[in-house]
């Protein structure tokens, strides 16, 4: 009994002392990568360039001792044919081993997105590099790398700035709802097409519009403009606290209201071989701006008129979006397919491979019901 206790004890002691702390890597030795950009290597068809943004902690927060650093980040780029190999190459050029566990932002340039298999890219990142599932993916109109080099104004580094812009729930629906790596993985796994935020760089970084990635080959198909993105957001019920402006019919003046999607429902109707959809949206809002000089917003007749006009306008915009989705891109990024699957599973299993075509032929009827109570907290004028 005693011998066993002693030997057990000794074994444990030995184990602890022999342990080499294999996995210990101190936090200050990390090369934290917070953003990644994928570009197509200019001049070459197969190669592409990956740029990673490393954090320099001393630039974020000055240490008590030691030198002062001003820059909080630095970028490194490598080119290669295989994503995996290129990422591994970063070990060579940096004094610290890249650590992707805090990767926040992934920007893929237009050209790159058109030629690489985005799903494979997403899958590789998730499978081997411990990239968090809630890293956000954006498609950039121009070169992705330049986005990471732009000196941010308010934040410490471009990655944080972009991250802030992506995650803030803003009042405009012109920006496509954020998609994370995990979201993409889920949708691609089902073969669905995906709409991703589009980022462009003019005077400043702007997130507007959406990029469509097809669900078959997982390549970029094209972009939706701001109006179309709005329609898409309304369709998916992603527009919270957005707004809409219309030209009032009678006076021609601009009226603006806030917009809250209260209910959105997509109902599939399957008859014989034809699939059609009925979209019902109920929205609510308050009038914020009324440039009209003659009408009185407390008048209910006026309000009802506005309601109808806004409903019509919304329907029109959604039809435009659907046009683009169905005719131009043949991509169902509004998850119409999910509604079909949830109604008739067996049918879905049969038709899912042809979904893009079936979707583009489908009849979609949109019905928007907008209500308003009038002004927010002031009466007329």
């Amino acid at each position, binding site marked *: 009994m005693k011998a066993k206790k002693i030997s057990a004890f000794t074994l444990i002691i030995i184990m602890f002392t022999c342990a080499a702390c294999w996995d210990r*890597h101190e936090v200050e030795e*990390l090369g934290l990568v917070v953003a990644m950009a994928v570009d197509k290597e200019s001049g070459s068809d197969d190669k592409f360039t990956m740029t990673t943004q490393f954090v320099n902690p001393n630039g974020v*927060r000055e240490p008590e*001792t030691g030198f002062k650093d001003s820059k909080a980040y630095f970028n490194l780029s490598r080119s290669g044919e295989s994503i995996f190999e290129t990422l591994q190459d970063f070990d060579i050029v940096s004094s610290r081993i890249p650590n992707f566990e*805090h990767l926040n932002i992934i920007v893929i340039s237009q050209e790159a997105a058109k030629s690489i298999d985005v799903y494979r890219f997403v899958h590789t990142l998730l499978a081997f590099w411990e990239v968090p599932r809630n890293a956000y993916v954006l498609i950039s109109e121009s070169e992705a790398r330049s986005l990471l080099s732009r000196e941010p104004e308010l934040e410490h580094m471009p990655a944080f700035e972009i991250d802030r812009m992506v995650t803030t729930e803003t009042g405009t629906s012109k920006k496509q709802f954020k998609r994370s790596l995990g979201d993409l993985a889920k949708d691609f796994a089902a073969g669905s097409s995906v709409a991703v935020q589009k980022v462009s760089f003019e005077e400043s970084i702007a997130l507007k519009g959406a990029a469509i990635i097809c669900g078959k080959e997982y390549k970029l198909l094209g972009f939706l403009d701001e109006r179309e993105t709005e329609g898409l957001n309304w369709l998916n019920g992603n527009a919270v606290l957005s707004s809409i402006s219309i030209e009032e019919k009678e006076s021609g003046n601009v009226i603006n209201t806030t917009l809250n999607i209260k209910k959105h429902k997509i109902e599939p109707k399957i008859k014989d071989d034809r699939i059609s959809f009925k979209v019902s949206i109920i929205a609510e809002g308050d009038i914020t701006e009324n440039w009209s000089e003659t009408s009185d917003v407390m008048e209910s007749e006026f309000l009802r008129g506005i309601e109808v006009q806004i409903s019509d306008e919304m329907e029109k915009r959604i039809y435009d979006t659907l046009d683009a989705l169905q005719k131009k891109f043949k991509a169902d990024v509004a998850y119409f397919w999910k509604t079909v699957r949830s109604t008739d599973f067996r049918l879905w299993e049969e038709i899912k491979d042809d979904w893009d075509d079936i979707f583009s032929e489908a009849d979609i009827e949109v019905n928007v019901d907008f209500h308003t109570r009038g002004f927010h907290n002031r009466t007329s004028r």
Partner: protein
Amino acid sequence: MRIGKKEDNGQNDRMPSMAGKEIDSDHDVFLKHSLSSNIKLLNRYVSKDADVVFRFLKLLDGQQNAVLVYVDNLADNQSIQQHIIAPILKEFGKAKGVLPGPVKIDRLKDSVVTARCVAETNKLNECVLEIFKGNTVFILDGSNRALIFTTPGWKTRDQDEPLGEPSIRGPRDSFIESLQENIVRVRRRIRDSGLTVKKYSLGRRTKTEVAVMYLSGVANQKIVDELDHRITKIDTDSIVASGYIEQFIEDNILTVFPQVQYSERPDKTAAAILEGRIAILVDNTPFVLIVPTVFSMFIQAPDDYYDRWIYSTFIRCIRYVAILISLFLPAFYVSLISFHQGLIPTRLVIFAAATREGIPFPALIEALIMEVTLEILREAGVRLPKSIGQAVGIVGGLVIGEAATNAGIVSPVMVIIVALTAVSSFSIPQYSIGISMRILRFFIIFAAGVFGLYGVVMAFLMVTANLTKLRSFGLDYMSPLAPFRMGDMKDFLIRLPMPAMKRRPRTLKNRDEKRQGDED
């Protein structure tokens, strides 16, 4: 051979008749009838002691001799003068007016001497024992029996506030070094006739008096018997303080967790006895032992019961959080920072990296350095005289921490964490558990430093394994948490209002469970 002996008592605390171990020989030596022979016998043991006084008395105008033997200042001189010598001399100093014949010792004992005679003996070693206890031995020529009078006269300190266990709202009296005084303090609080006092004499050379107090009719008899068994098994030279006894009677000596509680506070002791537990009072120690003890009792403070339940519940919850912090915080920090940076928020990682830039040690070493330093400081603070000690603790901590941070040896975050941990461990009411936590913390930090979060979890599992295997006098150490007893949970994490605590803790398996409600 039985060492200590006990006597069951109600109200009378008589000194037990001796059966103490021989001083040096194995056979009893008996007193003779001749005074001079007896003195010679006594001198065998006490002639070397300059402070043993032989006070000779001549009775009946010198016809009969007697002697009083006592230790100067150990026995109360004044009491001896007033209550023994004076009455004897008054009655028998002169021969006139006294019945003829030698003075009989019984007459002296029963009708003359006003001091309390606690025993008669004809054994030499008992006489010697009594002398060293502070009592007076009276030997009369012509009798082979010696009388022993109680005359303890040593000075004890005035009572202080209980220094180790301050209380905001509780009484401020505390135990002192005199056994009888301590017993009295408990008696004042429990005036029930069921309160039992059993006495033992432990320690071959110290012959320390030990009293065991409990409520008969309430306390679990099996535990009482078990305690009796363990105490009488103690066979050692010295019992200097109650801590010695604790180490002999505890269940498991190999664990970091204490299984015996101790206290300087009479109110806490009385409350424990009323709960059904047993108190062990040791002469010369102001710290009273309380058994049986389970884990949750170390985290309870008397103040919990003097305040309203909402406040007590809140404070208790804070205490539990403090325990968790004091055990796990540094380990978590080390494991997350050194191993699993992916598990903490990005901003935190960057912050930690920035603060640790340039620090020459890995986080584990840093943590150990700080902890060891803190332990040394703490110990130093205890050793120094009161006035300096407190300052050293605070200033030392601050200054060293500040200096170390400025020198770039440790990161400021680590200093904060270690300080927070230390403060958390101070909030534990019972000091002995605080020490356990400190020891465990090192183990867990080390485990974290080697195996990261996996190490922390494994260490936690090991600690739980140890805790679940512990028993204290037959009770599960982890009650009432495991095995889970709903009724006892009223006093565990939260404290329900007084009217709700109708029963004594079921964990103790007491005889009488009802606290409130009908009297039986």
